[in-house]
């Protein structure tokens, strides 16, 4: 191969309903590495992209929740397999985006993949751990079952471009929700790569939608959208979080903010489920 071959540059696009469109608005923006060098031009999503993504997520939510828990676990495990086979690429992007050294980035990618597998295991255990059989005074069984909230919006961590993103999107997906995620504004490429991997891991189209762009422009639209049932606003400052809380309250959404040391490992799983109580007569 000749040395003066032309560069084949990659276009970092959105993920909406299983397709990889450029933004509806036609905009893009420049992303730099942690040291300030050019990294990529990334699609700059618009509020209409958010709307389309929410419609896609809503459309597939029943199907995703209708799949068996075992099957959902396998699909998420498959994503971990895909990430494993592209770990060098993920490592390089995390290294450039977050300014880590090679070994640290490698450890971070490994930890992230392990976390996916951990959540994959949770899909068929949520009901036992968060649900239960309730004693009632009558000839009935009474069960409390965790059911997904529905469509969850994620404003992903601005700093932790891969690990933070994976935690925020995979936990609600494991619980049976579908997700519209806004990737880190300055470090979006690891999230875009993860989105690409879902295309080869049996994710039904629309279960995970990834939008890159300006957080301050898109987060209010996502939090105000009345067809979104919950939002994870890990990626905004506490001042902005107050405003988004108010907007989200307009349509009575569940809102998740990390609590740091106070968080337990299951809070992300617990936040985006509702409790459904079922009565059943005791058979003779």
């Amino acid at each position, binding site marked *: 191969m000749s040395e003066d071959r032309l560069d084949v540059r990659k276009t970092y696009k959105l993920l909406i309903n299983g397709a990889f469109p450029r933004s509806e608005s036609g905009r893009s923006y420049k992303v730099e590495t942690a040291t300030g060098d050019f990294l990529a031009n990334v699609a700059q999503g618009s509020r209409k992209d958010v*709307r389309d993504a*929410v419609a896609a997520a*809503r459309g597939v939510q029943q199907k995703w929740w209708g799949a068996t828990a075992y099957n959902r676990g396998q699909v998420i495990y498959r994503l971990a397999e895909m990430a494993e086979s592209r770990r060098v690429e993920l490592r390089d992007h995390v290294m450039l985006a977050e300014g880590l050294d090679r070994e640290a980035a490698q450890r971070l990618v490994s930890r992230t993949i392990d976390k996916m597998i951990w959540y994959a295991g949770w899909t068929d255990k949520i009901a036992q751990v968060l649900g239960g059989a309730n004693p009632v005074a009558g000839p009935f069984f009474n069960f409390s079952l965790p059911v997904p909230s529905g469509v969850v919006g994620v404003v992903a961590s601005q700093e932790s471009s891969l690990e933070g993103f994976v935690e925020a999107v995979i936990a609600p997906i494991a619980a049976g929700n579908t997700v519209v995620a806004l990737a880190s504004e300055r470090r979006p490429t690891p999230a875009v790569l993860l989105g690409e991997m879902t295309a080869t891991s049996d994710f039904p189209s629309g279960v995970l939608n990834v939008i890159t762009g300006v957080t301050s422009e898109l987060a209010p*639209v996502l939090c*105000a*959208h*009345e*067809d979104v049932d919950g939002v994870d606003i890990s990626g905004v400052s506490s001042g902005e979080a107050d405003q988004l809380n108010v*907007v989200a309250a*307009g*349509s009575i959404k569940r809102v998740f903010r990390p609590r740091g040391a106070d968080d337990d490992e299951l809070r992300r799983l617990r936040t985006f489920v509702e409790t459904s109580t079922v009565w059943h007569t005791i058979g003779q």
Partner: protein
Amino acid sequence: MIASVACVSTAPLRLVTPEDRGVRVSQTGSVPMIDSESQLKALLAGMSGVDAVGVDGRCAKLATRSIKRSSKKAAIDLAISMVDLTTLEGADTAGRVSSLCTKALRPDPSDLTVPSCAAVCVYPDLVAHARYVLGPSSVAVASVATAFPSGRASLKVKLMDVADAVDAGADEVDMVIDRGAFLSGRLGQVFDEIVAVKAACGEAHLKVILETGELVTYDNVRRASWLAMLGGADFIKTSTGKVGVNATPQAALVMLEAARDFAESTGHIVGVKVAGGIRTTKQAISYLVIVNETAGSTWLTPEKFRFGASSLLNDLLMQRLKQQRGAYVRPDEFSGD
């Protein structure tokens, strides 16, 4: 006779003003009398062909028009008032028609500023029930007839079908043309059927469904439009909604051109209805743009332009609420059908 009908307008459209709303309706012309099949064939054969590439290009260009803010609000309300809220399923029941009628009367019960729809469109056996529910309101009852959707029945049966619907109280009758006869060149038969059905309609308005998805070419769409208008149609309608290809912007454009040219040469303004596959506000507004840019604002009223649709109405209501609230709303905010 052929010379008296200008089939293609070459004059540019004028600016829309209150006096001249985009179409120059002939003051002296009249609908030519058709005495024989050969005369009809000669008249239709004398029409110039449709520039298919031009039509596609024109539609693509018009689809890029951006309608925003106050224009969008006005367009949404106009589109709501043009909807023929339709249910044409084998599983239709009186209850379903009742809820449809209620919805047509007051599309958004929480907002009285939302206009009523133009009509409800049902099968003939449910006309009486729809008429009963709608009472003396402004919402019309439209009924499909003439062995809808295939049109495969004898003329006698078709006329009985029409009479049945009209007797039950239908204000508007949607008939289908015999596409088999049209495509095999038996134009006289198609024409006679339209004339006979028009007579059977009496006071009721007649909408003639061309089923453009089965007519193959734009030339056929233009000829069928003229044939229907010459036969006495009050409206020409694209589709039944029951075949693979439903309303397309291209077919609508060709039909609107035909309606405009017909008005310019005969003085009769025939309406156009697009039906089937129109689900989003964006689609509806782009049809309104085509209407305004092809035929002119004379057609931008529920009397002259209709959407045959069911799910479109909810999308229009959602977009309307979005304009008011500034946030996207839940689809289940509005009743299903």
